[in-house]
């Protein structure tokens, strides 16, 4: 097995350990398991980074072209931001209960879709917009996933008390933090759509083509636009927005990876042949 794949599957395994630690920690209300989950995620992040770097070095092509590469990079950014939040914001261990299972499942799925390293990049993808587009998408996804995890944390704390729940931040603080992550995700997702429009304009001469991926991206962006309006204009707070962030996350995952996987779109690869 290639070193890149060894690193990749070690990362998947460690994220799996992290996932089960978080889930059992929640069920058993035993927060030492959260520490095991966090450490497994931290250690797993090292081979995850190495697998991306090795793939990049092997082909010399940016490793986020195919769906599996896009998933791998998206989860890489998610785990990175998750770890930053864990080490900078106090008492948010419960975040891993949603972030790690989703990361584990999506990364495992990426492993089943993995193809040989590409040695050249299609002319349509030879653009700096690719970087802006992918980074915007990955950071946007990571932000709304963490916002949804904070929403879950809010709902758990609201319905339970004692033990680990008493050690979580105040409900208001969780609600505010979730809102900030949604706002960040909204901006980054907006950046992704704008860069995509500019990129498409330079390659195809149009900024919008009603492609399924474009439309689903717009839908998920508008979902978060509605979230912000519900909060700012209509004064929604707390559990209603927490539920909303969890539902919006599903739409985001469908639009981000489900649509390009299931439907033939130009996001499945530019096919300009003769």
């Amino acid at each position, binding site marked *: 097995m290639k070193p890149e794949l060894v690193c990749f599957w070690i990362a998947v395994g460690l994220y799996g350990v992290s996932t089960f630690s978080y889930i059992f920690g929640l069920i058993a209300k035993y927060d030492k398991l959260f520490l095991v989950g966090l450490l497994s995620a931290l250690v797993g992040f090292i081979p995850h980074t190495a697998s991306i770097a090795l793939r990049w070095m092997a082909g010399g092509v940016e490793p986020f072209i195919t769906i599996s590469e896009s998933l791998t990079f998206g989860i890489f950014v998610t785990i990175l931001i998750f770890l930053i939040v864990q080490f900078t914001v106090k008492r948010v261990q419960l975040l891993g209960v949603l972030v790690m299972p989703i990361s584990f499942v999506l990364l495992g799925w990426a492993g089943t879709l993995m193809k040989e390293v590409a040695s050249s990049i299609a002319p349509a993808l030879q653009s700096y917009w690719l970087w802006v587009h992918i980074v915007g998408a990955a950071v946007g996804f990571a932000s709304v996933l963490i916002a949804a995890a904070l929403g879950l944390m809010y709902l758990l704390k609201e319905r339970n008390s004692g033990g680990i729940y008493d050690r979580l931040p105040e409900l208001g603080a969780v609600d505010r933090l979730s809102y900030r992550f949604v706002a960040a995700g*909204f901006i980054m997702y*907006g950046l992704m759509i704008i860069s995509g429009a500019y990129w498409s304009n330079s390659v195809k001469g149009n900024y919008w083509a009603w492609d399924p991926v474009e439309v689903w991206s717009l839908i998920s962006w508008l979902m978060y636009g509605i979230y912000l309006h519900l909060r700012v204009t209509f004064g929604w707070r707390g559990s209603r927005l927490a539920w909303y962030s969890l539902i919006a996350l599903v739409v985001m995952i469908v639009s981000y990876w489900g649509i390009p996987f299931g439907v033939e779109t130009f996001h499945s690869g530019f096919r300009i*042949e003769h």
Partner: protein
Amino acid sequence: MFLLVAILACCVTGVTVFREKRAWDLIFSTLWFNGLLVLLVINVACCFFGRIWHRKLTTISFGMILFHLSFVAMFGAIVYDSLFFFEGSMRLTEGETLVNSSLESYDTVRQGRFFKFSQLKGETTLVKMHTGYRVDGDDKRAAYEVEVGEPGAKKKSIVYIGHNLDYNGFKYLPEKEGYSTAVYLYDKGGANLYGAHVPLQSYRQKDKSFMYSTGEKESPGVFPFPQGAADPLFYLQVVYRPSPVTERGGEAYFQVWPYGKADTMPGDKPLASGKGAIGEKVAAGDYSLSVNEIRYWVGMNIRHNPAKPVILGSLWVGLAGMIITTFGRMKQGGRAGKGA
């Protein structure tokens, strides 16, 4: 909110139930759907600006004004663009020149209600198609050397994916390319009777290689030969196999069927068939055929979107508005936290 939900529902239906051209025809290009978009913009403008009017200008409200203004400007520009745009698909063989203002020069054309063909000036020439074209070490695969403009004052440029030619507000974008064979017809004595360039289509095979043949977009086929003659001699299919070594070299395969029998098509036994290298004659009944030259044809999209700079610029203004509002709210939240 109702309008937004209705538009979202239309979008989901368009990309899941109908898809692609059908979705475009039934939803995205229709007057009622675009009417919904216009209503949404008017609604946003009235609700937002009605609420914010006479309020004190703060960082947050400034950001929100920027965002909503960009939204209104973008949709206004989209409406303007839909009235004045032009989109045409032009196909040229190397050495060929077409007049830009002539409708016959385009395979397909779409234009806004107020677009005037007189805006299309001059003519377009495909000088050469370059394969394996490289820019700073990057393989651009195909690049078209194109001349556009009035005779004597033409603008020349290389067009490849990501690098377009802009002439008089009209953008020339690469779309697709293919082979064109110069097919010649000879009588028994070897005298040349007819010759014409015949563009070939490409068809992906199961082994992922390509077959280059005459035919329609979806499948190989025949055409009456000589083309445009009152009484063609036969139906002809030409297949070209490029040489892996020599650029524009290789072999041509011919198959002919009697003309006039509509039910005798590929699948039935041909009247004659054969193959030969480029320039070599192949017997076809009482005649002989040859492919004397291989050229490339290219398909280009020609676009004119007068309001596009406003649309694209509005996107950045909108993003700036989002960022300013978010920072304003974070600052406000921070102050409120400290106050508490």
